[in-house]
């Protein structure tokens, strides 16, 4: 029974992720007064990349991408099987570290600087994820996601500022403006292609596939703010996705100094204020 669930999750998630990526490109095109590619264009890109030759700069660089792929699938499975949220974030961090090391292993200066910048992005979004988990722990008394099924109120009622912080860092995670200085997606070149510069053919195809899983994972994190009601949870996830796309089209790219100025003062400040309110008023939802 649980094996069937796992197989369904592994097969259905990239389909949803591919459609999300397609909606992203189509919406971006419409916002820029263009027609845009067909909705299944990410799938065509993936098939084309898989049929190209595999040129590498370092013979181990595709191994790191395989590690990135497997750990993102593990974190998606743990999220949907409602396991411990702290462990999920640790597994997700290992996946991103594997990607950073993979980028650095190629030896190209573009990929190296892209990896450095990706590490700085990690410095800015990891605290917000940890504060989200701490907020959930303070409200429910456990890190388990399945504990949220017994909650009397949704998480967003008592964690509104953390919700705003998570919206901010979704731009960093989706690698979209204003914080896409490590490796922008598709036609916005930054350091050629940043951390993904030296990957070709099947390696790049695997990265695209992993990005589809990662989109669903990030929207799943936003879904947990109102987990009790599926419809409202889905509305919150889709709102977060559309917010990221619209902000991508109306802002320009910023430097890492700006990223730290904005996240380490405003975003983390909001999260800490929210946690202090929850602590001093002894709020609980379970």
């Amino acid at each position: 029974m649980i094996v069937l669930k796992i197989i369904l999750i592994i097969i259905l998630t990239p389909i949803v992720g591919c459609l999300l990526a397609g909606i992203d490109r189509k919406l971006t095109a419409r916002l820029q007064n263009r027609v845009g590619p067909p909705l299944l264009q990410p799938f065509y890109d993936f098939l084309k990349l898989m049929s190209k030759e595999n040129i590498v700069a370092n013979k181990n660089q595709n191994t790191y991408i395989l590690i990135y792929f497997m750990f993102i699938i593990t974190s998606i499975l743990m999220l949907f099987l409602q396991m411990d949220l702290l462990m999920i974030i640790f597994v997700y961090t290992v996946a991103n570290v594997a990607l950073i090391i993979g980028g650095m292993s190629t030896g190209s200066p573009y990929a190296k600087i892209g990896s450095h910048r990706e590490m700085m992005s990690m410095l800015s979004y990891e605290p917000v994820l940890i504060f989200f988990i701490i907020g959930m722990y303070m409200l429910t008394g456990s890190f388990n996601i399945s504990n949220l099924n017994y909650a009397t109120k949704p998480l967003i009622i008592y964690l509104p500022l953390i919700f705003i912080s998570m919206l901010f860092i979704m731009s960093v995670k989706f690698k979209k403006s204003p914080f896409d200085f490590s490796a922008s997606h598709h036609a916005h070149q930054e350091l050629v292609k940043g951390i993904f510069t030296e990957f070709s053919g099947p390696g790049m195809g695997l990265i695209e596939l992993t990005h589809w899983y990662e989109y669903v994972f990030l929207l799943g994190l936003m879904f947990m703010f109102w987990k009790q009601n599926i419809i409202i949870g889905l509305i919150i996830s889709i709102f977060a996705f559309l917010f990221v796309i619209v902000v991508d089209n109306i802002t320009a790219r910023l430097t890492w100094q700006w990223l730290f100025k904005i996240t380490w003062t405003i975003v983390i400040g909001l999260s800490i204020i929210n946690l202090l309110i929850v602590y001093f008023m002894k709020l609980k939802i379970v």
Partner: protein
Amino acid sequence: MGKLLSNIMTKSPWIVHVNCNSCNGCDIEVLACLTPLYDAERFGVINIGTPKQADIMVVTGSVNNKNIDVLQNIYDQMPEPRAIVAIGACATSGGIFHDCYNVIGGIDKVLPVDVYVPGCCPKPESILDGILKAAGILEEKRKNKSKGVTV
């Protein structure tokens, strides 16, 4: 699905744009292809900056002694199957500069060109037409598994 698999290169041609010795007139027209008025992205064309992920190399300008190594380097980094589109009169045959002291000639003196788009400079519609023709040639190359060699 079978029809899709037999047509995959035409659905997603990614280009890398190389400017050797061009006056930038053709480059402006190539970049105009990617703007909302002519919109190359509706065919799946993206200007990927890195040659390792590109299928089609879009070249403007002629070849001279300084950029012959650069052209070979970028062409070598492209994975198979790959195609080259030579844009403008200078890339086709040297153009108005064909008997300058440093100009070797058109791109086909160095690399195997698949599509020529003549003009000085060609309209964005012609450039888009050339890129899509090259995507069709790519599909043939993928089926026959023929490899490109440098001249």
